[in-house]
């Protein structure tokens, strides 16, 4: 271990953080106290570890030191008080001291980490606050780093996190060890939050994708952590597989000018084979449990794309079936819209168009609806109607990359102003990303 290079300490502190803060939270029952105790422990680690080398179990070291520093603090302030009315708090701490050592080796830490993640996804917190809070508390990113990923000012992010923390404190933290039903509810909440973090990074446009990529990487790290704690949960395997398989394509998703490259047009040689291998292994494992769920189904769809060496080899029939299954467990017009893309490949654009027409009222303000609809109409040679759909899509585009992509279609329409037959040669990947 070279003396100059202390980046390993940073890494050790980052990797120990969820467990250490989770245990300190159980111990102190107050998030701010727990965070402060962890901070103090980290400061001591930065002093101590370069000389003595890393402790065998960094998380246990940080928990012990963090706890002791905080207790000293309590004692010191108590001495300054005129008369301690009762020593209840301190003797509670002493009782816990003995229990702590054995708990460190026990299975408590699973629930500690789960609890820490779970308080970040309180239903009263809007999605953006959940994500910001999780990145701050669980991942330990600085406010500055989070603000950068969200493209807002440090002050705005600081305020957002403070507000979220106040709401969490108000809601109260569930400290009792969860029963099986509660535990699985918590898992589902945390899984959804991790997926939110991932999407926050994944849905970035080309010009910000690089800045927001750490969000995707952090989501993957948290998903792997959760899966390591709960190894037999097929939906957590599905979630981890899903985000790995999606993130595997990241190097191929944007052109140099920042414009989005559709799945069909991506250079598959740029896909990350290791991530794909891990994702496929996980979905493989998950399916053995025969307890299907939305993450597993979406991961299975992503897996079919990942397995196809060329777009032409994609098993669209299977993808159509999987979207059908997803419609059953998670009915949503967006799912049906995605399924329509598979239907267009299997049964042609007319069948796909028939499938999405009833969605129009629900998706009247949804960019992708008009993009997909326009693409089907174009394939049918109904260019005037396609043009109207594309114009609407541009009006609804969320990012300049989305708008630019639709404009490309329109250019093509203008170029091929002669209507083609129903089987016109345009291979159209309507599915974005």
């Amino acid at each position, binding site marked *: 271990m070279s003396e100059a290079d202390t980046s*390993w300490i940073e890494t050790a502190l980052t990797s120990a953080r969820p467990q250490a803060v989770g245990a300190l939270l159980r111990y102190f029952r107050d998030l701010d106290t727990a965070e402060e105790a962890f901070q103090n422990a980290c400061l001591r680690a930065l002093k101590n570890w370069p000389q003595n080398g890393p402790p065998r*179990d960094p998380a246990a070291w940080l928990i012990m030191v963090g706890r002791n520093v905080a207790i000293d603090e309590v004692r010191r302030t108590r001495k300054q008080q005129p008369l301690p009315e009762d020593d209840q708090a301190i003797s509670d701490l002493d009782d816990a001291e003995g229990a702590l050592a054995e708990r460190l080796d026990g299975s408590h830490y699973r629930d500690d980490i789960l609890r820490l993640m779970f308080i970040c996804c309180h239903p009263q917190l809007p999605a953006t606050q959940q994500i910001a809070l999780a990145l701050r508390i669980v991942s330990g990113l600085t406010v500055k780093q989070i603000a950068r990923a969200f493209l807002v000012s440090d002050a705005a992010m600081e305020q957002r996190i403070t507000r979220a923390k106040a709401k969490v404190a108000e809601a109260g933290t569930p400290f009792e060890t969860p029963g099986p039903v509660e535990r699985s509810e918590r898992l589902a909440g945390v899984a959804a939050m991790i997926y939110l973090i991932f999407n926050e990074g994944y849905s970035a446009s080309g010009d910000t994708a690089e800045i927001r990529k750490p969000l995707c990487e952090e989501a993957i*790290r948290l998903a792997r952590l959760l899966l*390591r704690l709960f190894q037999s949960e097929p939906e957590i395997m599905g979630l981890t597989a899903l985000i790995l398989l999606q993130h595997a394509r990241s190097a191929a998703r944007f052109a140099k000018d920042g414009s989005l490259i559709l799945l069909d047009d991506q250079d598959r040689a740029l896909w990350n084979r290791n991530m794909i291998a891990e994702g496929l292994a996980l979905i493989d494992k998950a399916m053995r449990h025969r307890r299907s769920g939305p993450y597993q189904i979406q991961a299975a769809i992503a897996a079919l794309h990942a397995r196809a060496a060329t777009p032409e080899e994609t098993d669209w029939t299977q993808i159509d079936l999987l979207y059908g299954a997803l419609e059953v467990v998670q009915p949503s017009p967006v799912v049906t819209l995605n399924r329509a893309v598979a239907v267009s490949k299997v049964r042609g654009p007319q069948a796909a168009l028939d499938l999405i027409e009833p969605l129009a009222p629900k998706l009247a303000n949804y960019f992708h609806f008009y993009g997909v609809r326009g693409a089907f109409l174009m394939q049918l040679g109904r260019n005037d109607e396609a043009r109207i759909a594309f114009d609407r899509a541009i009006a609804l585009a969320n990012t300049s990359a989305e708008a630019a992509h639709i404009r490309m279609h329109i250019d093509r329409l203008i170029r091929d102003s002669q209507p083609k037959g129903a089987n016109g040669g345009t291979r159209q990947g309507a599915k974005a990303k």
Partner: protein
Amino acid sequence: MLYAILCYHDEDFVGSWSKDQDEAVMKKLAVVQDKLTQQGRLGPVARLLPTTAAATLRKEDPPLVLDGPYAETKEQLLGFYIVDCNNLDEALDVARDLGAANPGGAYEVRPVGVFRPGGISA
């Protein structure tokens, strides 16, 4: 004598490496590996996917499949090398070189009994 060098490390720690850190470590390890390759002493090398991708078959009757690695420990088996050495000291020297390139964790150095190089390629 063939020795297996089994690489154990805290998976959470290794999983917290940034892409750059990971690549830097792999690059340093490649230097050690290249040296061994030139000496004709390096056999198969594997870096394993995370233990979350593992399943364990307990050889009960009937065999039982469990999710996850065989043992839940603080450090996990993350990969292995097969190297040709004259004795344990030489094998430990190789492990020391690898350890200098990738500090932290532990290498279990274990003589290989049956060795079949096999015919698959990555």
